[in-house]
């Protein structure tokens, strides 16, 4: 019979924390990079220039359609070979490109949620398309975009567990390695699951708090 022994968690606690920290760091950096990507692609997507919006649509469709696992391996083994990216930056790049496609859709939906009359009123007063976007449409769209953007961050934290396949020593890989040497799979994988949950749950609580505050404003 298997008797659980949780000392493996206590003994290796600093290592788990290091893994969790790396997971958060990679997710955060990927998010920070995916916001400008997503904003640019999303803006191109609503452009009246058909060529521009076509290429933006291609970006979204392609990177939404490729599994993240495959994308990560492709960047690490193919692109990374030429660009000497290394596993750490391959992971961040892959996550950012992938997440950028979803952020682009969030941005597009946010812009399209603003009634057409807003753009029209702004243009009618002599503003250029860019001014109307910057002064009238985007400030309103940002409020609509923040909640889905926050949940995208939660998704990113969970998705980041896939970077372990390109040998980034994140929380998941630390767990896997420890299981390989200690054979304490029940304790370790349970603990890791709880750690991921703690990270995403506290983030989602934080977002909820933040949303309540902005609504009150």
């Amino acid at each position, binding site marked *: 019979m298997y008797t659980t022994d949780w000392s493996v968690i206590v003994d290796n606690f600093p290592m788990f924390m290091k893994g969790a920290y790396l997971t958060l760091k990679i997710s955060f950096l990927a998010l920070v990079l995916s916001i400008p990507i997503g904003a640019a692609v999303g803006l191109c997507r609503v452009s009246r220039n058909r060529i521009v919006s076509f290429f933006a649509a291609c970006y979204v469709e392609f990177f939404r359609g490729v599994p993240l696992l495959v994308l990560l391996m492709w960047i690490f083994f193919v692109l990374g070979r030429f660009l000497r990216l290394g596993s750490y930056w391959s992971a961040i790049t892959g996550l950012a490109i992938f997440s950028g496609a979803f952020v682009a859709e969030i941005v597009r939906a946010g812009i399209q949620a603003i009634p057409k009359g807003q753009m029209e009123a702004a243009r009618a007063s*002599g*503003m250029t398309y860019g001014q109307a976007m910057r*002064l*009238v449409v985007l400030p309103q769209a940002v409020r609509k975009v923040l909640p889905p953007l926050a949940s995208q961050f939660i998704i990113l934290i969970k998705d980041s567990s896939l970077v372990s396949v390109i040998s980034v020593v994140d929380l998941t890989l630390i767990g896997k390695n420890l299981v390989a040497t200690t054979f304490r799979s029940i304790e370790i994988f349970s603990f890791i699951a709880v750690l991921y949950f703690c990270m995403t749950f506290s983030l989602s609580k934080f977002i909820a708090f933040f949303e309540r505050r902005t609504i009150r404003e």
Partner: protein
Amino acid sequence: MNNITFSIKNVSKRFGTLQVLKDVTFDIPKSKVFAIIGPSGAGKSTLVRTLNGLEGIDEGEILFEGISVHQKKTDINKLRMNIGFVSQSFNLYPHLNVLSNVTLAPIHVRRIPEKEVEESARKILASLGLADKEQAYPSQLSGGQQQRVAIARAMAMEPHVILFDEPTSALDPELIKEVLDAIRQLARIGMTMVVVTHEMNFAREICDQIVFMDHGVVLEITPPKEFFSKPKTPRAKEFLSKILHH
């Protein structure tokens, strides 16, 4: 020539197979108030929206103070600085307070210093009975107040003409008067205006010319006194009998 604000020449427009404007030709002189009336689907809104280029045209030409509105080389934003537009649905900017709604375009389009714009905006708001509302947000205002802010927003650009696209259609009956009063006030100071409206008494009272349209065609352009007493066309007669005796 330079007392003509808009010169509309043989303008036609189609939406797919639907002809919404058919060979429309007339001039709108400076300081005149034109009301565009007619049954729904007549092309009234489309016509007024072609005047500032919100709608394109398929044939013909529209000149604003001698400059072609729909030509590619025309800087449409420069023309629009002088053409105010007030639409049925107000379209105030919900993220800005009343004062900022009014000052946004003068600051960013006319590039007038903020202090100066705010001063004149306050005067305009006061003249429309909105002096105490400058810090309010659009969602805190009634429809009539919102539409008056929209008029103030148009006035703050100091335009040469203001276009109104059914300014009272979205309002509760008891709020219509305050908006019409604001437009009356503009008429008194000699503002050139083009008003698409269903308010016949209002049209009769303040307009210099009634433009009657049906099925994309301008059927007659007549001073209101004449139009309401003895319209020239049978279609106008029929229209008037329907709306005045219900």
